[in-house]
Every structure is written in C-alpha cells, then in structure tokens.
C-alpha cells in the first residue's frame, strides 16, 4: 500500500484522478481518498498538520514495513539550477527552526532530480531573509514534520518527499490550477518510482507467512510451551524453511494434540524439534 500526504487540494487533485481514488469517510478532520493500493490524505499547510496527517494515516490504516509513504507537493527553489516543473526527490530534509536533518534512504533508481529540502514554519520569500540563510535547494512548509512523524512507523527507504518546483521564492502567489498541472505532469515519473519501491520487497525472501505463524502459535498453545520454548519453535521453523519450501506435513498432526501437563508438552516438543532439525 502507498500512503500519500499532500498539503493542499490543488496538489491532491491530480493524484486522486491519476490513481482513481474515492473519498473515504473517516472520523477525522482530514480529507482522505483511497483506491486499491493508494490512500491519500490532505493535511493542510504546515509542519504540525503534515506530521499529524502522516501519523493518522499510518495508524488508521495499520501500515506495515512493506508499505511506503510519500509527501508530494510543490516547493520553491532557491536558485535556477532547478527548473519550474522539475520533480525532485529529497535526499536530505532540514527543519530550519531546529537545524535537525532527516535522511531518506534512496535505494531504488528513479528518473527525478535530487536535492535538499528545507522546511520553514512560515512562507518564505527570498528577499525577506538574509543571504545564505537557506541551506536547502528547495523550501517548503511540511517536509520535515512529515518525515519525522513517518519515521516512527516506517523504515527510511519507505519514506520520501517528492517536491515539484513551482517558483523561485518570490512574492508571487502560485495559482491552484498551475499547482495541479505541475504535479499532474510528474505523476508518471512518480508512479515509476513507486513501482520500484514496491518491487524491492518482492525481491527478498520472507520469513514466516501468516499461516505459518498461526500454526506455530497454535502448537505452542496446544503443547503448553513456555515462552522460551515457543521462541525456539519459531526459530526451528525458520531453520527448516531455509532448506524447504514449506513446513513438514507431520507438523500439522500436532495441531490435534492436546497435552495435560507441561511434561507431556515437553515430550511432544522434543518430537517436533526432531521434525524440524
């Protein structure tokens, strides 16, 4: 599942259309839209709003490590190295107020530019700030809050800020329709990146499947195994699976066994161990 946080509806609209998302009613003040494998939340502007929206989304939808979360939005570029309309994957996100920096793990290939994002608590106009007071290549008002909150839930290779350059930090308002067009024009690049992120997980063998875990929990309960023995059982199952496709059939016979004492359980456990070693 992909989770997407945008600040404004103008940023969300092209994403909603592209992924064919439908509005979902949830008990929160956030607007949420969902499809089969993408859920989007509109946080509103600001670092706190973005952090809250990311946390709400990831807890409400019970995100797992295999999922990913993206902050997609516009940002002002410090200089003309970046062009209006460039999609930039951020490899460093600085919270201007504290100087604290966050680093997403960029493990997959992508066709976007890369740069440093600096998040301010207020709208930035270059002319209002002393020279050299912006460290980032781009400026926004959400990225650092989003990233810090998402880091409580997800691994750093599954949290990314993608910013599309909308202006050069001049005091010129950016029209919503222009924002939507900028984001919309980059969605195929962003989708390709999402596909790469997704394929990373399928590349690696998994541990125990949910069914395997259920079998092991049931066995531990039936055989009255202690915490340590249950742990050993899980490890032995993994050891067995390192050289077999699935757990041995004979193991499932033990699912019908009920023991009356710990000693009986221990004897059964010895037989289970032999099966798995």
């Amino acid at each position, binding site marked *: 599942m992909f989770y997407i946080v945008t600040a404004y509806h103008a940023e969300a609209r092209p994403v909603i259309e592209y992924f064919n998302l439908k509005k979902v009613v949830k008990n929160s003040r956030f607007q949420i839209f969902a499809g089969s494998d993408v859920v989007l939340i509109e946080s509103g502007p600001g670092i706190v709003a973005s952090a809250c929206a990311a946390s709400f989304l990831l807890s409400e939808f019970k995100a797992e*490590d295999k999922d990913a979360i993206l902050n997609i939005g516009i940002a002002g570029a410090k200089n003309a190295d970046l062009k209006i309309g460039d999609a930039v994957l951020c*490899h*460093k996100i600085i919270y201007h107020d504290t100087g604290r*920096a966050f*680093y997403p*793990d*960029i*493990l*997959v*290939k*992508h066709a976007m530019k*890369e740069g*440093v994002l600096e998040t301010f608590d207020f709208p930035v106009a270059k002319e209002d700030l002393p020279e050299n007071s912006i460290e980032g290549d781009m400026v926004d008002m959400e990225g650092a809050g989003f990233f810090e909150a998402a*880091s409580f839930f*997800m*691994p*750093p*290779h599954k949290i990314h800020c993608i910013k599309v350059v909308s202006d050069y930090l001049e005091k010129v308002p950016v029209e919503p329709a222009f924002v939507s067009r900028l984001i919309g024009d980059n969605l195929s690049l962003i989708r390709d990146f999402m596909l*790469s992120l997704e*394929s*990373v997980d*399928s*590349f*690696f*063998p*998994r*541990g125990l499947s949910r069914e395997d875990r259920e079998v092991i929990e049931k066995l531990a309960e039936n055989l009255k195994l202690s915490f340590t023995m249950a742990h*050993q059982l899980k*490890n*032995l199952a*993994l*050891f*067995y*699976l*390192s*050289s077999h496709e699935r757990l041995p059939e004979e193991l499932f016979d033990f699912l019908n066994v009920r023991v009356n004492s710990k000693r009986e359980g221990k004897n059964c456990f010895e037989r289970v*161990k032999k099966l798995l*070693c």
Partner: protein
Amino acid sequence: MSALKSCFARGFSHIYVEEGVEENPLAQEILSKFPKAFKVRIKHYKDVFCRPRQNFLVQESSRKLIIAAKRGELLYPGPDVCQDFGNENFYYTSPALNCIYSCEYCYLKGMHPSANLVIFVNLEDFFKKVEDLIKQKPVYLSISYETDLLALENIAPLSAAWIEFARGKENLKMEIRTKSANYPAIRHLKPADNVILAWTLSPAEVIKKYEKNAPPLELRLRQIKKALGDGWKVRLCFDPVLYFEGWEKAYEDLIGRIFSEIPACGINDASVGAFRIPREYLKRMRKNFPPSEIIHYPYAERGGVYTYDEKLKGELLGKVRSLLKEHLPEEKIFLT
C-alpha cells in the same frame, strides 16, 4: 530476479560527508573516485548510520558510503571470542565500519543498525592513540575488525597507510584480516616484519553459498602465494568453521587444496574457530533476516555467546586441526 535487481540504485550512489572532514585529503581522495555520486552533508555519521528502522538486508543491495571522523574511543581491548595468538595486550580498532562483502554469517549484520559503509578519515588520531599506547606496552592490534579493510583498499588506501605507520615499530604487531583478492593494491609496499596478512579461507561450497560477493578460493590462494613469495608474514584463518552436510569432506578438500598450492613452510600460523556469535547480535539477525541455515541453526548458548554444542564444536575443531597438523607444526595452530 535480475530485472528486480536492476531497480536498485548503484552502490555508493550517495556519499554522506560529515561536516569538518570535507577538506581531509583522504576524504577528497575517496570522493574523487565517485564523481557521479550525490554528496550529502551531515553533522555526524550517526545521523545517517543510526537512523531507526533501517533495513540492513535491503540496504546491502544499494550500500551508501559515509565519510566521517571517529571521536572518543579509537582502540578497544580484544574480546574473549577472538584469538590473541598468544599475544598480550590484544586490541582492535575500526578504521571502517561494515564491509563490501556480505557473508551470511557475518556478525556485523547483528551489530550495526545499517549496512552502509563508514570510513573514518582521521587516521592521524588513530595513529596517535596507538603511539601513546605502545609507549606503555607492546601491543597486538587487529585493524580489520569491523570490516574487511583490504577489500576497501581501492576506495580508501587504509591498509597501506596502517602498514607504513606500523613499519619499524618494535612494540607493535598488527594483523590485517581479509577475504579479498586485493593484495595487488598493497603489493608495491615492502613487507613489514610486524604486520601479518591474514586470509580467511573457507571450503569452495561455503564461499559460493554463504560468502556473497567475496572472491572465490582460487583467487584468494593466488594472492596468498604472491604475498608469501614477496616475503610477507601470512596467517591462514579457518574461522568460522561451519557445520553443514558434507562438512568433513569439504574441509578435507579445502586443506588439501591449500597445501597443494601453497608451501606450508612459509605460513606464519593458522587459526581455527567454530562459528560463534554474541547472543544479542544473533537475536537481531534472526529477527531481521530471512530463513537461513546459519542464522536460524539451533545453537547452544554459553555465557551470552551462541555456538555449536560442545560435542559438535569439538568434532569441527578437532577435524580441522588434525587436517592442518599434516602440514603445520602444532604450535602454529591456534584454536578458539
């Protein structure tokens, strides 16, 4: 599989550089080797290396490089699980963290929160610490401890720098342990009497199955032969000795092959150690890595260390020692 693999960014696509080391000559040398990498400034290497919830397994497919300066403690007393070869005052140091190889049994996977490679470029600080220490007592120092230092030589010529530092220092004996075939990177140096080049050797099937990215046996042997020919002190390390189906024959073949290619009389000594790993590291590896015959093997625990049960451990060590005894005098064989 390869299609999926191609979704990964190339290794060292990003180089994180700690504030304050940008001008360090070694940092500059390293950076010049990766002109296409994104250079990202960081305050402290731990800001990247110690991020929460990193996935070591996935990171190994697109390792990043961190260039930093190590502060605080730079030398550590050698741990009990490591062989001191009869030397007093055994210390180790870590000029780099992590490795470009990926051995399935490597304890670094359980020790570090990240698969990224850290290179510490403040060599002079390390040297100063060693100099201070050897003024007090003779020191036996392992410098390839949390890494394979020689494997990194083409990225950062640390082994060469350490060898030159150690040369002629009477109170210092130094070991550089490696699985690499990178001896040519230091071949221009004159052998140093107090430096031992130690090669870890494993049966060909172990290398193929469990020592991902490390050079095959044949290439390691070729470099050992060259190093011996050039006059270096060479140690052979059979550590870890692993248990697997057919292990006896595999170690017979290994040792037979080694001494059919290498003159036994040139070997300084050999170390033999059964697989062992601190409990906490193995716990972390078991949690974070997919099913593995090594990681998930039902080891016995003794004093916070997991290893084979006494009987099996005795058999493994006994067998390898007796095979070695056919070629080396007993006093040159060290068991752990």
